[in-house]
């Protein structure tokens, strides 16, 4: 390269044309880059224009926040949000004794606190396991009673605590079972392998609702005479058996992602099967499958709403019970939008957590 000629004057720096920078430039590149993009933009704006203002008017301008159901019905102009504050205790806690409802409330706070605490990777230590165990025991005592608290039958549990318990306990209990099934499916022993394959494929082939039916009508027949198991526990068992099959497939993905060399290295060190799995394979495989496991937690959380069909009073069923009350009949849209918001916030939080953890764990190999 030659040295630059010295007699050249520094050229004047030209500014980019006004149409390609700033707000105008952004609009141009992102909304009006071609004729059909412009058309598309205008069409979407039109759609938003006809749908958003009436919705806002219905939901916020003309809405009622404190009126009784009767007043709402008479005015009949906008959303009747007062259905929520007037029934919030029942929607959240179901038939749990009114005076004792601080207990499930506290249990939910504890559970959410534990979940938030576990999302930070610096807290991922052995102590986390003990915190969870202690937390679950305390939650159990809070819900069921004992230690000076008045006992509450589990038939009276309902609302948000029930939804959360079914999904969190469901996933916690299903995880070990899922790992065993995944290992079984990878096993060299044909009988064990085929048992696991049949179980996993059978469960994944049928809808959850058929298992819930089984838990509510067939399961009592399986037990010896005189032994009964309560409905919530039976539904919980169905959810665990169902979730385990899906976890097994996720874990299998992790196991298959392990390089063959890891197994060979472990074998050459003289480790036996259990040691190989416990010390070498599972710690790595389970790390890979954390993000898909969170997705399973999300679907388990959404799927617990199916217990409505076997008449358990979860969040959705308590809402429906309120809607069955003559005073609040006809305000389904408001009530369902509120519940949808609760579910949405929880699931959105979990899925953004899953995305974050996926980025953090992505070490590039």
């Amino acid at each position, binding site marked *: 390269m030659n040295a630059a000629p010295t007699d050249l004057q520094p050229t004047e720096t030209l500014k980019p044309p006004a149409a390609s920078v700033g707000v105008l430039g952004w609009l141009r590149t992102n909304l009006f880059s071609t004729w059909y993009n412009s058309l598309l933009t205008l069409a979407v704006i039109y759609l938003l224009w006809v749908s958003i203002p009436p919705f806002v008017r219905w939901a916020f301008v003309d809405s009622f926040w404190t009126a009784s159901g009767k007043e709402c019905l008479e005015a009949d102009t906008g959303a009747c949000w007062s259905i929520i504050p007037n029934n919030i205790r029942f929607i959240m806690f179901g038939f749990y004794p009114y005076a004792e409802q601080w207990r499930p409330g506290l249990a939910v706070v504890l559970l959410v606190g534990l979940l938030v605490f576990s999302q930070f990777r610096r807290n991922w230590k052995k102590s986390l396991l003990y915190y969870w165990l202690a937390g679950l025991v305390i939650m159990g005592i809070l819900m069921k009673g004992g230690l000076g608290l008045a006992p509450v039958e589990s038939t009276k549990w309902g609302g948000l605590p029930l939804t959360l318990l079914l999904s969190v306990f469901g996933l916690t209990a299903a995880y070990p079972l899922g790992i065993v099934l995944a290992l079984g499916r990878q096993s060299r022993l044909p*009988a064990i392998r085929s048992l696991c394959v049949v179980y996993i494929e059978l469960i994944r082939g*049928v809808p959850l609702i058929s298992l819930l039916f089984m838990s509510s009508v067939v399961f009592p*027949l399986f037990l010896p*005479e005189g032994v009964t198991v309560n409905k919530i526990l039976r539904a919980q068992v169905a959810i665990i058996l169902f979730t385990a099959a899906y976890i097994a497939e996720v874990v299998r993905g992790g196991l298959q992602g392990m390089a063959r060399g890891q197994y060979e290295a472990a074998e050459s060190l003289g480790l036996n099967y259990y040691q190989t799995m416990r010390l070498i394979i599972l710690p790595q495989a389970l790390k890979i499958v954390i993000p898909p496991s969170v997705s399973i937690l999300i679907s388990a959380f*959404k799927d617990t*709403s199916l217990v409505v069909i076997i008449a358990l009073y979860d969040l959705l069923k308590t809402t429906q019970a309120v809607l069955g009350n003559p005073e609040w009949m006809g305000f389904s849209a408001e009530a369902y939008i509120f519940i949808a918001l609760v*579910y949405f916030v929880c699931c959105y939080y979990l899925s953004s957590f899953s995305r974050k953890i996926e980025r953090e764990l992505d070490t590039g190999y």
Partner: protein
Amino acid sequence: MTPTQATNAGGETSGKTPLLYDPKVRGILYQIGVLAMVGLLSWYLMSNTLANLERQNIATGLGFLEKQSSFEIGESLISYSAADTYFKALLVGALNTLLVSFIGIVLTVVLGTFIGIARLSTNWLVSRMAAVYIEVFQDIPILLQLFFWYAFFYEILPGPRQALNPFNGVFICNRGLIFGIPAAHPAFMYMGIAFVAAIAAVWALKRWARARQARTGQAFPTFKVGVGILIGLPIVTWWLGGAPTAMDVPALKGFNFRGGVSVSPEFTALLLGLVLYTAAFVAEVVRAGIQSVSRGQTEAALSIGLRAGQVLNLVILPQALRVIVPPLTSQMLNLTKNSSLAVAIGYPDFVSVAGTTINQTGQAIEGVGLIMAVYLIFSLSTSAFMNWYNKKIKLVER
């Protein structure tokens, strides 16, 4: 079997493995153990069940299928009355499940593909809207969505007299969706035959075009000609058949509509819920599939002189589909399985009919067994078909 024992045993026998430490023998022992446990458990459950059934005087076996069902079903594809057998009632339920799943899958794939492409649009507004749609519909339980649409039909929509009329001949009200169809005419049957013939012709054309291209290197515009045949042949038949234009338009008579086709609110709510929910997942599948094909593929294809349509058809789609098909299959199966939630909003699908049967006969085990068997058949046949398709489009590695 502590480590010390193991070393002792290994040291003493020097070379010859004792029977218990032979991996083969151990494997067999483990398997026998597990099988024995499973067998014992099932024997225990079976004996309990048999005792319970005997005590409660519940019959066993599938004999009830022959008996008269004596309950009505709201919607049916085949003629059915309360005097028919349980078997026929269950068949009606299974057909209803198939109907809603089939229409649902077709609509879901179309809508999901559309939203997935919209998500990748360079248009900021369109891509944002698609993202919001995906996030919102994925994160709300399907059952809640079904309840919402069901309430939408029964509470929010007006009665037949004030029915919404978005297009000419289409009415939406709390009796469901009612729309006009062309009045019956023999020409339509011939059109159907012509369409089938057109499909056969296109298939033959495709084979011929491929053989010719292999022989001479000349490409034939199969797609354009094919679409022309598929649309043209039925239209020509329609014209030859006398070009019937009479429409069977629904009209308000008394309290309800007469004429046209009416789709019940239950079916519409179920279809709407299933399609909107599953489409959000399909959109993500489609987006991931398209993004998996690297930009260089498009550039390379363009640089060897392929036209935009050819790039899509010959380069992008074959690669994207390989990524898309397996997760798409599982979404289709999810839709089929989720259609069982029809029982919650009163659409007579298989689970709903089987539930009524269980209530009437008390034969819970057979009922639940039938539900599982039917869904397993649906699932296995769908995945068999999709596996076949997947194998067909799979990368042929040399």
